[in-house]
């Protein structure tokens, strides 16, 4: 067993006849932060969704902690190891903020309720919204909802956190509060995969940046090289657009 916590091997994904992921391979090391970027429709979100089985693979294989996702028996275990944060937050609207966080640990990890509440409150404090614990998600701002969603993912004590454009649905003034929480997470050694257009964030915390286009990985590099010396023309073009 190497240090690679995620191994993606030659995966392809079709939606009907459309090829969305075209022979993608990628290895991610423990405690690394990998940022995936690329134009919309390039397959980056689909790649994340394949990792925790929200989408089935058309071919290829993915190993999370050496467990193959093709084996349906592994799916639940893999999902427990992978936390996921969505662009649209997807909090449960009929549950309070605290209930959103403790529901899954109680049911899926078998933690008793009192203990779950203690853990939940700690996480809410960490993301800075403990005072909202008894409110419903609809009364929170987008930034606050996204921070609750991060806390909800963390409550499952995952080994890996995935973020699917976590700030794309937010008003500009709320982006920072969410990125701050994510940056803090990287300091704790969490393995993170982040699909985002926030290049400032990528520069600051990424160990590796992956550029995708038309279902392929076209460039994969550490941030310095990626920004200062991009190899691929399309990467150059993308960067020139997004950085100005």
């Amino acid at each position, binding site marked *: 067993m190497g240090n690679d916590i995620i191994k993606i091997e030659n995966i392809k994904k079709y939606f009907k006849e459309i090829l969305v992921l075209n022979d993608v391979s990628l290895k991610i090391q423990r405690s690394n932060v990998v940022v995936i970027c690329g134009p919309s429709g390039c397959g980056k979100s689909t790649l994340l969704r394949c990792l925790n089985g929200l989408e089935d693979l058309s071919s290829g294989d993915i190993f999370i902690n050496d467990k193959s996702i093709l084996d349906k028996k592994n799916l639940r275990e893999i999902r427990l190891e992978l936390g996921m944060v969505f662009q649209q937050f997807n909090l449960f609207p009929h549950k309070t903020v605290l209930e959103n966080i403790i529901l899954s640990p109680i049911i899926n990890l078998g933690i008793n309720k009192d203990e779950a509440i203690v853990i939940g409150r700690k996480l809410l404090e960490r993301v800075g919204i403990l005072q909202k614990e008894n409110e419903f998600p609809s009364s929170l701002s987008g930034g606050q909802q996204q921070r609750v969603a991060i806390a909800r*993912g963390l409550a499952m004590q995952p080994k890996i956190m995935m973020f699917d454009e976590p700030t794309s649905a937010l008003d500009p003034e709320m982006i920072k509060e969410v990125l701050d929480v994510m940056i803090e997470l990287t300091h704790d050694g969490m393995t993170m995969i982040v699909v985002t257009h926030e290049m400032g964030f990528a520069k600051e915390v990424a160990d590796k940046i992956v550029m995708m286009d038309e279902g392929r990985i076209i460039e994969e590099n550490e941030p310095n090289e990626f920004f200062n010396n991009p190899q691929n023309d399309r990467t150059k073009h993308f960067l020139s657009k997004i950085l100005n």
Partner: protein
Amino acid sequence: MDYTFHFEVLESYWTWLAKGLWITIYISIISMFLALIIGLIVSICRLSKINILVIFSQSYIEIFRGIPLFVFIIWLYYGLAMVSGINFEPVTAGIICLSMQHGGYLAEIYRAGIQAVSRGQWEASFSLGFSIINTFARIIFPQAVKIIIPPTANMFIGLFKDSALVSIIGVNELMRQSQIATSLTFRPFEFYTVTALIYIVLTLCLSQIAKFLELKMSNK
């Protein structure tokens, strides 16, 4: 033309109508309850990805929603007995027909409600490790219920009035009791007017209950 109402005839038939009302309520409540269960099962089949269940549920909905209740009742009560020798009590036959037909209506109401809950809710729940059953029971259905309540209440009101059709196989529910009373007294307008009023009052109660539930759910 002038017609003088003689509502005083009702006095001697009051308990008679009350007995019919009781049977109407009894049939309606049991049928509603069964329709809720049938509707849920059929809609889950409809939304499942298992082919045979989808075909079963689609056929169920098309057949039992399409068949006129009148024909269904006659067929089940007389027809089935002739063909197979299976004999139902009239009340039982009525309940089966009402709940099966309205179960078909409800299945479509449920389906719309469940599909109205965003795909992201399923995905968030799966990502947290919930099984499909837990996802449905704890995350999706509670949200769908809120959407389902108003059309379901509407359907229950329909079921309640449809229950009058059970009179054709001799169940002495409210409608039939007032028909008999009419034929004994020759005072149709008195009895039918009062019967209509009773239906309206009970319908009002149903819609008030629905309003209350709706309000209670929307506080969440």
